[in-house]
């Protein structure tokens, strides 16, 4: 492994100063579950590692104006178990519960997961349909970025190299609406998804009032299935309507062949699991 200087500052301002000072040559380390593997495999070779484990005050989960405010250093295990998250956004608690194993969730953080931006991760589809946003902080100040503008490409975000994710903001899930997160795992339970689908939906007066769908693992970033949402809004929730609308995801996904499935299989399964998610959240069978 490449040599690096390890910094363990005990305040956010010291972190920001280090990132500014070593801009482009410093990497943040939160839980380290992705970063340590990248270092070991020499896929990255920064001269400076700035660890966040001594930075206080960035791991709380609060509600403000109907919006969840989640510190960037909150562990994924705490997201899964938090009664506040379960109450205001049960979909989000479920998405984090499906990440890897307890051993990984115990240390992996919310901010680290967002910055890693692996399209096969579990939280992104739910973050997209909940309309989450990310607070990115640097010595230049703070900016709030909608999550849909954070994910840029495979493992790439629009975060600058001197920025740190200090907060995740998530509007509360509409109470009473149906919701689901389906993680399709043809291999083992602890694997990354072959296809994943998050959905929220409700029916009022016999027609579809709210419908939101996003998919993970089948494109360079998680993708919102707006075509499906637009086709269904205001329609009667019939099995035929859901089946027809689901077909449209075949054109918006862009999967690759890998050990979790071939591209054509993932495209077919995207359609199948979108339909099943729609059936579940709209109560159609």
């Amino acid at each position, binding site marked *: 492994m490449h040599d690096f200087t390890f910094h363990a500052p005990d305040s956010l301002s010291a972190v920001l100063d280090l990132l500014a000072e070593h801009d482009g040559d410093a990497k943040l380390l939160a839980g380290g579950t992705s970063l*340590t*593997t990248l270092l070991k495999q020499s896929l990255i070779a920064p001269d400076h*590692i700035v660890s966040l484990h001594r930075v206080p005050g960035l791991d709380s989960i609060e509600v403000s104006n109907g919006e969840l405010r989640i510190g960037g250093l909150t562990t994924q295990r705490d997201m899964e178990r938090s009664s506040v998250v379960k109450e205001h956004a049960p979909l989000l608690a479920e998405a984090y519960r499906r990440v890897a194993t*307890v*051993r990984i969730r115990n*240390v992996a953080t919310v901010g680290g997961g967002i910055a890693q931006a692996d399209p096969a991760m579990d939280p992104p589809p739910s973050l997209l349909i909940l309309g989450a946003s990310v607070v990115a902080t640097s010595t230049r100040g703070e900016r709030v970025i909608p999550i849909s503008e954070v994910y840029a490409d495979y493992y790439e975000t629009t975060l600058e190299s001197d920025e740190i994710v200090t907060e995740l903001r998530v509007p509360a899930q509409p109470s009473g609406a149906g919701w689901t997160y389906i993680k399709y795992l043809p291999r083992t339970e602890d694997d990354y998804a072959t296809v994943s689908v998050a959905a929220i939906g409700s029916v009022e007066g016999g027609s579809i009032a709210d419908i939101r769908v996003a998919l993970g693992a089948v494109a360079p970033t998680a993708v919102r299935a707006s075509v499906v949402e637009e086709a269904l809004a205001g329609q009667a929730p019939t099995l035929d309507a859901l089946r027809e609308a689901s077909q449209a995801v075949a054109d918006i996904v862009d999967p690759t062949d890998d050990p979790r499935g071939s591209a054509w299989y993932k495209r077919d399964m995207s359609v199948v699991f979108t339909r099943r998610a729609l059936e579940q959240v709209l109560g159609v069978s």
Partner: protein
Amino acid sequence: MTTTPVRQTVTVTVNGQEYTREVPTYRTLVDFIRYDLGLTGTKEACSVGVCGACTIELDGRIAASCITLAVRADGANITTIEGVADGDTLHPVQEAFINYGGFQCGACTPGQIMAAKALLEHNSSPSEAEIKEWMMGNLCRCTGYYQIIESIQAAAEAK
């Protein structure tokens, strides 16, 4: 703030004993535990966080020591398999693994015991489904898993 090029001092408490060592910053925690501290009970198999062989308890939560940097653990309180028994008295989970055939070759066993012990501390009477969900991150090439589940159920009943 700590800034040390290349080598850095790490002080950890492992199984109640404090250790201080100077190590390269890239040293993984599993290598630190095995080679710098000589506690070879903790095993490394996959090296990428998947198999669970290197499971230890880090500040009260199980973690994969193969994907943790030793310098990141500076100041931490760690329990390894060597710290599970009370002198010559085995932990109920260890007793159960012996009595119910929870291991064969033993390569995965320290990690299985650390994970199972943490499960029972978190949930003293887990259902079979809860055991499977918690333990799915600990792979075993020998037992076929059924005896591991039986061992954990027996340990839960023995408590």
